């Protein structure tokens, strides 16, 4: 369960980052359309919301589940930033 939440958060943060011109250009080397921006933004926020609902649905009490969700989100953000860094400078 936690792994699927982590994965959905990763997709969410990736989509939200791709909805930004700078990161999209870095990833695909071309400018993006308004439609794609909306699509990535929509999917990003939706996945984020779904991951939150899924975390609240685990056996943890609400407050602990929220701490989990925020912690995982932080780790995902750092992870996505490093993905872009690797893209700029392959290891």
């Amino acid at each position, binding site marked *: 369960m936690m792994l699927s939440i982590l994965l959905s958060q990763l997709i969410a943060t990736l989509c939200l980052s791709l909805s930004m011109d700078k990161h999209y250009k870095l990833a695909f080397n071309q400018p993006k359309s308004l439609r794609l921006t909306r699509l990535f933004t929509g999917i990003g926020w939706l996945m984020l919301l779904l991951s939150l609902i899924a975390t609240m649905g685990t056996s943890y009490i609400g407050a*602990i589940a929220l701490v989990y969700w*925020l912690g995982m989100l*932080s780790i995902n953000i750092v992870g*996505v*930033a490093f993905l*872009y860094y690797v893209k700029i400078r392959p290891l």
Partner: protein
Amino acid sequence: MAWVSDRNSLVNTYLQSIPYPMKPDFRKCMIWLHTYSGLILGWLLFAIFVTGTLSYFNHEISQWMKPEHDKKYHINNQVNHSITQLKLHAQGEQRWQILLPSERIPQWMLRWNTGQKRGSLILNGNGETTQKIRASRGGDFFRTFHYTLHIRQYGGRYIAGIAAMFMLIATFSGIFTHRRFFRDFFTLRKGKKGKFLIDIHALLGIVTIPFSLMICISGLMIYLTLYIPWSDQHFYADGENKLNSYTIPTLVKLDPNAQDIERIVDFSVIKDQIQRQWPGKHQIARVTIEQPQKINARIIVERVKDSTVSRQAQRLVFSASTGEALDNYPKYITPAQVRQVLWGIHEAKFADIPLRWMFFALGCAASALIATGLIIWLNKRLARVKQRHIGHFIVERLNIAAISGLLLAIIGYFVSNRAFPVILEARENAEVQVFFISWLMALCHAVVRPVTKAWYEQVALASVSCFGLFLLDIIQEPQRLINAILDNNMPYWGFSVMLLLVGSILYQTANWLHHRQVKADKV
């Protein structure tokens, strides 16, 4: 009005005389505040954050540092067995306490006291009192250092509190220093010297905002009455003590003149009642028996903390002679409850292993945030000046001593645990002395050596020490690690794996520093 113009000219002269005066621009003011609030106590904050991060695993560290502890307990009714032992060793004492072993804290401990007079006993897996355990503060040293700085009697908690306030200021002002907060959200630039470090600092800063706010605010709330004592001193004659008596719920005092009859009911009677209220295995953490020799003796059972965010676990109260349930503790008043919850979040006793690792990762990120901030401050200024002054020298050397020196001190503390003989007198104090002496030596080394060499040598030594400690542990008693793997004693083998992992990271860092030094020498 002449004095007004005099004063204005004086202020202007002063503002022009300081090297980086505060500008009327809001963002510039915030940058100034962020820079100097971070710098002034940055080294101390780094030490507080690193030791605090280690404290998330203080019981696991203690397990590794006291390998003699039994991990398997063969007694079924541990409370009844403890009561039998307490009758033998603590007859006549006013209060008995039984701390039951758990997976995280495999220590079966009995404690007793009459007023200020205290005693304790540790039982082994068979419930016997023969266990010989090496004296060590274990992970608790990091936990207490984290908020007392090992100078509890000399205002350590005040200093730690001031550092937390500075961290709060640095966090808030840091938010305003980013011009393109969202645009640069996932950005780590390469190539340009120093930019990568600034990006890392900004990214970690954003990511750890909730964590840093939570840790600093909850940390301050724990000792709120210590930092803001005036209201309770004003309203209550006995200050904090009186305030605590109002806010901390207590049970009705037992009559000390009650009949002397020691009649403690079989604990299985109470256990059945507990099981109905707290379903699940291993729910009891602690059992306290008050006035065990009297007819009105009372048993207080405390639940494990993994089902609540609050620091105060659930409790149940029973009559020791009949086993019937008695009136429980009154509820905490709301402000006290808020404090208990914040305290609980700060200590994260509720956290299971994955969540604990998450807190650890965030703690590491916050520590890295402080370390990068300190290095950025220096790099920016060194790039601007032609000739260094004493301030640059001090910051440069303190950076080395505070960052790599602290790592050396921590590893030195672990090495001393294995290097000192088990029967050494005042062993636990000797380990702590090694920690501080190593740190002091790292500072001296940083002062006398050239900067790049000092960084490299300290990081390389820390790396070698990690690998050396792993080998030392294996050479001393190879069976320990083998047993830990066979019994899946994760704290033990996990610690050994972490030694190798940290050693490898430090080796890579040392390697990188060495190449940079060679490059610099060529130039």
